[in-house]
């Protein structure tokens, strides 16, 4: 990654224009042609630096549900349980964390009521209680990273 890649990452996390030739519009202030910008984005995706190029959704405003859930998983069952949790397409992230509650995952559904089904399915599939911790209040969602 060079300085131009860093500038691309820092600029394009902020927003992307909605116009007929948005890459050309973004390329100019970066000192690139549209083709050069596209080639760099494709490379950054191939390198795994960029995971997605598109919308970050607000689940509740779409009419869906989003929650953070945690489980206390015995060490020897960790991989097996992770496999069951991850097999649900509604699970978008899953991390091992250092705590008695050691598996933390995000469930995002587009329909109300579906979240409870997914969590119940995970409990039934693993035999381990799932602690549902939906947000009560949002103070900041900024998840942006300076390259």
């Amino acid at each position: 990654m060079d300085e131009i890649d860093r500038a691309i990452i820092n600029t394009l996390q902020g927003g992307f224009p909605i116009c007929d030739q948005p890459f050309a519009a973004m390329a100019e202030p970066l000192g690139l042609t549209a083709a050069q910008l596209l080639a760099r984005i494709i490379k950054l995706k191939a390198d795994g630096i960029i995971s997605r190029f598109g919308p970050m959704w607000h689940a509740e405003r779409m009419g869906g549900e989003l929650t953070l859930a945690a489980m206390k998983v015995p060490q020897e069952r960790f991989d097996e349980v992770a496999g069951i949790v991850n097999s649900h397409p509604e699970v978008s992230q899953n991390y091992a964390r250092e705590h008695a509650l050691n598996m933390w995952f995000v469930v995002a559904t587009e329909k109300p009521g579906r979240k409870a089904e997914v969590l119940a399915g995970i409990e039934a599939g693993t035999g381990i209680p799932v602690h549902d911790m939906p947000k009560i209040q949002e103070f900041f969602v900024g998840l942006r990273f300076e390259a």
Partner: protein
Amino acid sequence: MDLSDTDLALVSVLAQGLPMVSHPYRAVGAQLGLDEAQVMARIQAMRDSGVIRRFGIIVRHHELGFKANAMSVWSIPDEEVGKVGRLLGDAPEVTLCYRRPPRLPLWPYNLFCMIHGRDRAEVEETIGALNRRFVLGAYPHAVLFSTRRFKQTGARYGRPIHQAAAAE
């Protein structure tokens, strides 16, 4: 905002990522039977209503060098949690900040922040500084570093195109 079947089909196409072509919105429309202007108008409407929080690239923070991430949590009395949440949410070091319900007895914490850094020491230092700045030392507190990432895909929304078409 109520999403129409066309919107849901658009959501589904966008979930695959914006096409890397000079006229991406035209290319998206071609998959849905919409023209470029219609696609731009629908995306703009979803952005204006907040259904789309942000439209752009989403990075893998680990690959970008942010190799340490910790969920920093506190148990704050209900009457104070709003104030403390706003203070932490405004802190530039905090990437996400939510109030969530405690789950006793295992989990007494009700305020959740994510802190990302290049290494563990940097994140610990950041959390220590937040605790000092906002005088949070008296509250029960825990820091949960992530040790393994099993999945990071982003949520999948929308409806396959054929289903949306069938509904219309």
